[in-house]
């Protein structure tokens, strides 16, 4: 006969009632899967927003005939701004070439020009944390201060809209994410409560034979933690499967999609474990008081 330890006792439960244990793990797993799915959508949406934000750019048009030395000093000055990631100078010729390449509709119009109507410009990319309307405006103002700068553009409308979209996405994500998490917690709690109810008779017998509450609780808590962590693993596996299927089925945008990182997955497991443990504490506690 082997000695009774909480861990052995907890593991035995899975062998003694495989169906019930399996169902609990499935239920926990699928609840966490819900959160996982939502999380995947959220992080991919966030990434899409970041990709968009990379295009936040301040363009400063330079007066015709500004000397090259002024340009290169200014370029260094601008690069030193705290918000600025890098600066590239586009000459008049480069601008015309680009216009011919990119603006098909204007190709005809520009073909026979004697004089290049396009100005040279600085294209200023911002640091990731400075890609919002406020920073862009600040940079624009400062650049406008250079005497050789004719005009500054940074697509104010567009940047402001991006800002709004970001805030909106954050609020929606938070609210819906919390709602999903609440749903998962309730379902997991319910599942654990049901399995404890299932064993109410065993618990009451243990009490009648003289076991302390702590002694009874041990294996249940471990069991809850094991179920939680198993459910978490199951959920990650299902998320991965869904992700893979989805990515291969939508060839176009699929490659751009991202999965959770290691830390996020770990957090997921911890979340599952804590819920499994917490659910057990609460529901065993209730049962112990009831008997």
């Amino acid at each position, binding site marked *: *006969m082997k000695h009774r330890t909480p861990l052995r006792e907890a593991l035995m439960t899975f062998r003694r009632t495989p169906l019930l244990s399996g169902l609990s793990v499935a239920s926990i797993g699928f609840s966490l899967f819900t959160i996982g799915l939502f999380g995947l959508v959220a992080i991919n949406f966030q990434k899409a927003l970041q990709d968009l934000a990379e295009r936040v750019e301040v363009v400063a048009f330079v007066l015709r005939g500004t000397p090259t030395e002024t340009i290169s000093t200014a370029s260094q000055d601008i690069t030193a701004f705290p918000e600025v990631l890098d600066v590239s100078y586009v000459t008049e010729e480069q601008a015309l070439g680009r216009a011919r390449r990119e603006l098909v509709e204007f190709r005809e119009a520009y073909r026979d020009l004697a004089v290049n109507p396009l100005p040279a410009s600085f294209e200023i990319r911002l640091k990731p944390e400075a890609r919002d309307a406020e920073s862009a405006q600040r940079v624009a103002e400062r650049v406008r201060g250079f005497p050789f700068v004719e005009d500054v553009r940074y697509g104010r409308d567009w940047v402001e809209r991006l800002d709004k979209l970001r805030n909106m996405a954050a609020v929606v994500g938070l609210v819906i994410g919390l709602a999903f998490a609440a749903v998962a917690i309730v379902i997991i709690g319910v599942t654990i409560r049901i399995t404890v109810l299932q064993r109410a008779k065993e618990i009451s017998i243990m009490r009648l*034979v003289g076991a302390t509450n702590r002694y009874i609780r041990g294996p249940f808590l471990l069991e809850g933690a094991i179920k939680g962590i198993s459910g978490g693993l199951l959920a990650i596996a299902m998320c991965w499967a869904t992700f893979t299927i989805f990515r291969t089925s939508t060839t176009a945008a699929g490659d751009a999609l991202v999965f959770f990182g290691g830390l996020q997955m770990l957090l997921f497991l911890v979340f599952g474990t804590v819920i499994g443990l917490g659910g057990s504490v609460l529901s065993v506690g209730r049962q112990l008081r009831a008997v």
Partner: protein
Amino acid sequence: MIRFLHATKTYPNGASGLKDVSFQIPKGEFVFLTGHSGAGKSSILSLIYAEQRPTEGEVRVSGYQISKLGPNDIPRLRRQLGVVFQDFRLLEYHTVEENVAFALEVTGARKETIPNRVMRVLTQVGLASKARAYPKELSGGEQQRVAIARALVNDPHILVADEPTGNLDERATRGVFQLLREINAGGTVVVMATHNMELVRDTGYRTIELKGGRVVYDSGVDQAAGAES
């Protein structure tokens, strides 16, 4: 050791279990509880092991007052008791030996001694060969004997047995009764509810008879005194 003083038990659904029951069981005694079905025998026993609490009056068991037990007192009291339940109450997902060992583990017995003590008591009730079986793989009488083994295993100060031979044949009944006598000889109080009048008549131990929740006869005391105290 055990003292009932005007104890009354009325169940939540209004049914009356016990009415104004008073008696006292000193150290070392062997007492039979008799009476018709529904007379209140199990009700008395469940007050002793604190599954129920008296609605009125007082019940004292080995120094604890049952109606005032704190949450930590309950396990402490129960570890001094051995209980054979009328409906056995075995852990269905644990084997026979695990069921018996469990009662020993909760008392904090030394781990190394447990397997030996378990096998010894299982042998005493004739179930050594069924140690690895689960309760539902046993016959009725075998389950009852597991319940008896579990009650005996921790050498309790008080042994409470509710109809412990109801599912046993005559030979097994004699064997179990012999075990109870032996443990009583070692100083343990034994309180046994039974319908086996043959046993009661043959042995001449103290007998408390119940009827409709009242004590109607107590061979251990002058009847008038019993009613008064």
